[in-house]
C-alpha cells in the first residue's frame, strides 16, 4: 500500500469526525487534524481505533501521541505495515 492509498483510506476514516468540508476535500500530507479539520481532540482516540481496524495493525501509546496530522499518521501506518510484512 503506497502513501496515496493510505491517505485515501485515512480520508474515509476521518470524514465522519469533521464538518470542514472544504478542508476534507483538499486533504493532503500537510493537513492537521485539529487545526485544519477542527476535529475534537477527544475523538483522536476513536480515529486511532478506526485506523487499527482498517489496516489491521496495533498502534502503541508513543506512536499515538504523534498522530496529530496526516503526514505523521501516514508515516506511522506505513512503518507498521512494513514491519508486519517483514515478519
Amino acid at each position: 500500500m503506497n502513501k496515496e492509498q493510505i491517505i485515501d483510506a485515512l480520508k474515509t476514516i476521518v470524514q465522519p469526525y469533521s464538518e470542514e468540508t472544504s478542508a476534507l476535500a483538499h486533504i493532503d500530507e500537510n493537513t492537521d487534524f485539529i487545526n485544519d479539520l477542527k476535529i475534537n481532540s477527544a475523538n483522536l482516540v476513536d480515529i486511532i481505533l478506526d485506523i487499527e481496524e482498517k489496516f489491521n495493525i496495533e498502534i502503541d501509546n508513543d506512536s499515538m501521541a504523534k498522530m496529530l496530522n496526516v503526514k505523521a499518521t501516514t508515516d506511522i501506518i506505513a512503518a507498521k505495515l512494513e514491519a508486519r510484512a517483514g515478519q
Partner: protein
Amino acid sequence: MDNRVVITGLGVCAPNGTTLAEFSEAIKNGISGIRHQPDLEALNFSCQIAGKPELSEERVSQYFTPLELRNLNSSGIVYGVIAGLDAWKDAGLTIENNDEPDWNSGTIFGAGTSGIDKFRWAINKIDDLEIRKLGSSVVIQTMASGVSAFISGKLGLGNQVSTNSSACATGAESILLAYERIKTGQATKMLAGSTSDSGPYIWGGFDAMKVCTFKHNHEPEKGSRPMSETASGFVPGSGAGALVLESLESALAREAKIYGEVLGGNINSGGQRGLGTMTAPNPVAVQRCIKAALQNAGIKASEIDVINGHLTATTKDALEIANWKEALQLPAERFPYINSLKGMIGHCIAASGSIECVASILELSEGFIFPNINCEDLSVEIKTLIPEKSIPQTLIQQPINILAKASFGFGDINACVIFKKYTS
C-alpha cells in the same frame, strides 16, 4: 422582587406516546404503553412486562449527528434529548448554531443513572483486557450528567447545566430546582426534566426486590394497577419528560404560549426515622411536604382541583391516600380528584415525575382530567378513606385551576409541586 415562573414548552418521550400530540391523545383515552418484553422473559425476570418509548431510527437521527449515533448506547440520553429539544421547540425557541452561549438559559435535567447498557459494554471490555478499545464515548454517556451535557451542547445553554438525582422524586425535584433559579432571578429560562434508561440492567434490581408485579405477564396492559384491590407491585417503565420554565416577564415579552404557572412547592426527607426507611416513606414527612408545598404556593387545600399522585400500584397506595387526606384536612366528600398516570405507563423511575408533570400541565391547560385505568376493582382500604367519585375512571372534561403533583423516592425523600392555570 421574586419572578413569577410559567411553563412555556413541553416535551415527552413516554411508553404511550413520544410526541406531545400522541401522548395527549393517549392519556385522554387511557391508552396503555405497557408491553411484554421478550428480553426480560429470556433473562428469567419475574416481571416480564414494562413500559418503553417506541422510537424509529429515523426519529432518533433527527436529534443526533451521525458521529454521535455511531456508538450511542444510552437509552436515557436518547429519551432526554428528544423530550428536551421538543420542549424547547414547543416553547417557540430556536435551535440554531449560536456562537455565543445563551447566558440566561440553563437546564436541570435529572437521571437515576446514565447509559447503563454502555456501562455494561465498557465493563466487559475492561474485563476482557481491551481497555484501549473503549474509545471516547464511554464517559460522556455514563456520567450521571450525560443527559444535561448532551442537551446543553445542542441548545448552547450558558446558565447552570446540571443533573439532579433523587430516585423517583427526581423529576418533580428538577422542576422545583429550575423554578427556584428563575424565581430568584438567576436565570430567565430553565429546561427542567428527567430521564430513565430502559432495559434489564436498570430494572433488574427492582425485580429482585420483588416490588414489581409478576401476575400479569400474559396481559401487559392490565398489569399496572394503581389504587386497585388487585395491585400487586409496580410495572417498570422508562422515558423522559421536559418542561421549559420561564420568567413571566420573559414569556410575556416574547408573546410565548403559556401553559400554566408554577406556584411553588416543597422538597423534604423523612430522614429514615419513625416509619421511614431506605425504601418506605415516613408518613410524617410526606404530610409535612404536602402542607409546606401549599403554604409555599400560598393556597388553601380546598383550592386544589386535582391531585396527580405518586401511586405506583403497590400496597403503599392506600398509605399515600391516607397521607394526602391527613395533610389536606378536608371532609371526605370534598376530597379533590386524584389520578395516577402509572396505570398507563408504569413506573418510569427517575423519569416518572417529569412525565407525570407534563400530563398534569396538559390537564390544566386543556381542561381535562385523565382517567385512572385498571382500578375498576378499587382498593377496599382506599374506599374507606375517600369517595369513589374522587377517582375518575373515565375522562372528565372540565376546567381545572390548581393541580398538586407529588413524587416520593427511595431514601425516604419527597417532592410536591403546585401548578396553576395561567390567566392573564
